[in-house]
């Protein structure tokens, strides 16, 4: 199961994920017509500003067990087992803000939405773009992210990569200072080509 993984250290705060998310959750699915829609499509991923002005794409973690799901009064929050996604049924939502009090990450917002009954404010949060995933597309925020702060991969792959990074950072070899590195006339691509020919 692939999931959206957030790499906060890579986020440059460009907020393109927010625009892509709002567009993906619009009627038309197109940015230029989405901005004229009523209700105005809004993002489900929120780039928060840190203490030093740095960005962080804050999105639903789809916790298990999910505090919002346990706190929901009308039982509007449920889990989609296929996509391991916590979903909100807008028809059941009563906009009581119990989930706002329960969510430890502050990722739920309250506004009108195209999926909700007209003129009704409901709780809205990330749905892992399951409509897109069903069509074989990656979630819109990942597609839009230019700095790889959002990636779409299996948890085991992400953990393995992170473990390797940590291992490399503590190995003695990495700490060694190369006194005279010299230079190489061929770049990495050329070298790879030569290696291939040699094989």
């Amino acid at each position: 199961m692939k999931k959206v993984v957030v790499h906060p250290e890579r986020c440059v705060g460009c907020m393109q994920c927010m625009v892509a998310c709002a567009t993906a959750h619009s009627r038309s699915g197109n940015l230029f017509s989405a901005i004229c829609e009523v209700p105005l499509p809004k993002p489900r991923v929120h780039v928060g500003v840190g203490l030093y002005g740095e960005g962080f794409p804050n999105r639903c973690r789809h916790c298990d067990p999910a505090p919002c799901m346990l706190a929901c009064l009308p039982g509007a929050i449920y889990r989609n087992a296929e996509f391991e996604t916590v979903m909100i049924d807008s028809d059941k939502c009563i906009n009581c803000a119990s989930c706002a009090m329960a969510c430890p990450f502050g990722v739920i917002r309250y506004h009108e939405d195209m999926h909700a009954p007209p003129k009704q404010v409901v709780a809205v949060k990330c749905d892992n773009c399951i409509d897109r995933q069903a069509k074989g597309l990656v979630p819109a925020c990942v597609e839009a992210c230019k700095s790889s702060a959002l990636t779409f991969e299996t948890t085991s792959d992400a953990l393995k990569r992170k473990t390797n990074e940590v291992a490399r950072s503590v190995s003695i070899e990495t700490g060694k200072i190369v006194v005279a590195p010299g230079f190489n006339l061929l770049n990495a691509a050329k070298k790879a080509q030569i290696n291939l020919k040699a094989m």
Partner: protein
Amino acid sequence: MKYVIIGNGIAGIQAAESIRQIDSRGGITIIGDETFTPYCRPMISLVLEGAIPTEKLAIRGADFYEKLNIEPVLGKRVTHIDVDARQVIIDDTPKGGKKNHFSYDKLLIATGADARPIKAEGLSLGNIFYMRGQAHVCDMLESLSGGKKALVLGGGLVGFKAAYGLMKRGFEVTMLIKSGYPLSMQIDEAGGKLVLKELVRHGLKVMVGAEVKAFEGNGRVREAYLSDGSVLQCDIVIIGKGVLPSLSFVPRDQVRVDLGIVVDQHLETSSSGIFAAGDVAEYVDIARKTPWVNAIWPEAVNQGRLAGMNMAGRKVAYKGSLSRNVIRIFDVDVMTCGVVEPPDDPGYQVISKIDPHKNFYRKLVFRNDVLVGLVMVNDIDQGGLLVSLIQSETPIKISGETMLKPNFNYKQLLKF
């Protein structure tokens, strides 16, 4: 294994569900005095308000008991528990050969709380209601027609929601409260005044300090006589003077009872094999650091869930309860949690920010470097973040000023 659960409110329901997740074979009996399909109690005020129909109160299907293979015994109140014989007795005089006692290996008391009764003359008149369950609200709906004036006793959550619901129905509502502002148990003075201002702006009349001595009317209530000598016209009266844990059947010599039934970290009472959860249970309050009954929905859910796991043999510890509430009134959103009025002690620091023009107010209470309480009026989206800091007792390393800003967010707690 035989499980008996007394109470079919959310704590009992959650317990049954978590028992079934671990133990698919054990027999479960639920004894409850309400006969409705499991429903959401905090939402009854929405029915009064007319925002949702009664059918939307149900939070489980009508086949709930059947699906989980539970034996329901509904419409009954437990009269006593025989701790030595490990039996629960529902009625001392059985009729028609019906079973009146239930043996258990593990027992859960999740009877919740009942509305605190008041003393006044003429309480038996029509159109005087307590507001606690679905039945109360169904009765109220039937008597709304033709009425214009309503009297609400108590400015707590129930009184408050009742007043709000009746105002939305077009009633002229008068609220009698003891302290100078509503929700005095949940909110501090500055926040309470903002709430009051909003309600008064929409036509609520508030009387401070007075109490009702007597009601009069011809079958149905017409007038209320107050302790200050004044007389109020009213077509409907709603009493919201808080709740008391329902534990009259609990043998106090065998099960330790304080205000509620005292439980340990596994929700087990002083009598082994008997557990308690929900509005009836008493355990340490995380923010107050003292035993407390927090009769709120989210704690009932937590406690029921954990009690069920512990009963089924999976030892799971409960950290403690935390008082918290969130309400939306007209255009004002209010969230409160933990200690909102700290004692006069140098260990506590309070910071706050108020903007009356934007109806924005935020107050944070710290004990040393740990957040222990908050009041938020509007901009409550990030409230859960602050509540979870109180719950986890995380030492706060960033400046309190940052946390007072409306745009405070998760990133500001991260260190990289």
